């Protein structure tokens, strides 16, 4: 393999794949098993969100009016403009995390740390935006115990926000581990898993944004 790499210089994805093949076969096999396990973890999280999303959709389509009435007061719609802005902050963090991993794969450590820090900052920005959004929703009279709309909204966005918070902590730990030299140019499964998790959190938000703000 080393001869093949030496005679034909590789670039891009091929270079990254060739580095994997140079690693000991035990690691390559372990990595495949870990990756499969991590994908199953993400799928199990999909089931968790799916159950709550199904409950929300059921409650909404079976309600006589939406937003529902609480007494004589009809609850307000959620703020689409701010949610669109906050969504872009989260989606932007997905792109920066993708750049971080790509730079790690191509052995550009400085850029990796810059993009990772940008991702963490954008993740924190999204959480602050969510706190602002929750404050506005509560001011509008939508509360957790007060209506099915509030219960669904706070449960689902709260669960998602918790996932984002865990993701921010996870990425911070990954950055510190990378700094300590735990990952190398050919062994970086933790970073791959972190990136997949962060993309997953983004995609869950696409669904929640559609259900709460677009529908």
């Amino acid at each position: 393999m080393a001869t093949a790499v030496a005679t034909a210089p590789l670039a891009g994805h091929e270079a990254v794949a060739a580095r994997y093949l140079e690693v000991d076969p035990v690691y390559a096999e372990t990595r495949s098993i870990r990756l499969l396990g991590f994908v199953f973890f993400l799928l199990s999280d999909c089931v968790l969100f799916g159950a709550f999303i199904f409950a929300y959709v059921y409650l909404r389509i079976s309600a006589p009016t939406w937003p529902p009435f609480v007494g004589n007061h009809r609850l307000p719609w959620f703020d689409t403009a701010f949610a669109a802005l906050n969504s872009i902050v989260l989606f932007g963090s997905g792109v920066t995390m993708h750049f971080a991993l790509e730079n790690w794969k191509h052995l550009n450590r400085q850029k990796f740390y810059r993009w990772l820090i940008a991702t963490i900052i954008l993740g924190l920005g999204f959480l602050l935006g969510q706190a602002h959004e929750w404050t506005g929703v509560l001011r509008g009279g939508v509360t957790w115990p007060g209506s099915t709309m509030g219960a669904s909204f706070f449960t689902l966005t709260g669960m998602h926000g918790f996932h984002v918070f865990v993701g921010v902590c996870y990425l911070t730990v990954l950055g510190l581990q990378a700094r300590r030299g735990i990952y190398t140019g050919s062994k970086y499964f933790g970073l791959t898993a972190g990136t997949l998790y962060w993309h997953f959190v983004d995609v869950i938000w696409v669904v929640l944004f559609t259900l709460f703000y677009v529908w």
Partner: protein
Amino acid sequence: MTEAQIEKIIALLGALLVGVTAAVQLRNDWAAKGLDALVTKVLLGLMAVGCVLAFLAAINVLGVHA
């Protein structure tokens, strides 16, 4: 200009920037193989869809309630 209008303009520009970047990254990664690459491509594609939704919401095509 109202606060909502400013938010929509920033969301609009952000959706364009992030959506195009996600689409370009998706195209660059199209040839990558393996389970992680496959999952990344699916998730990047869905994120690009999210940008389209945010864009449409910012220009009042979606999320306008009477």
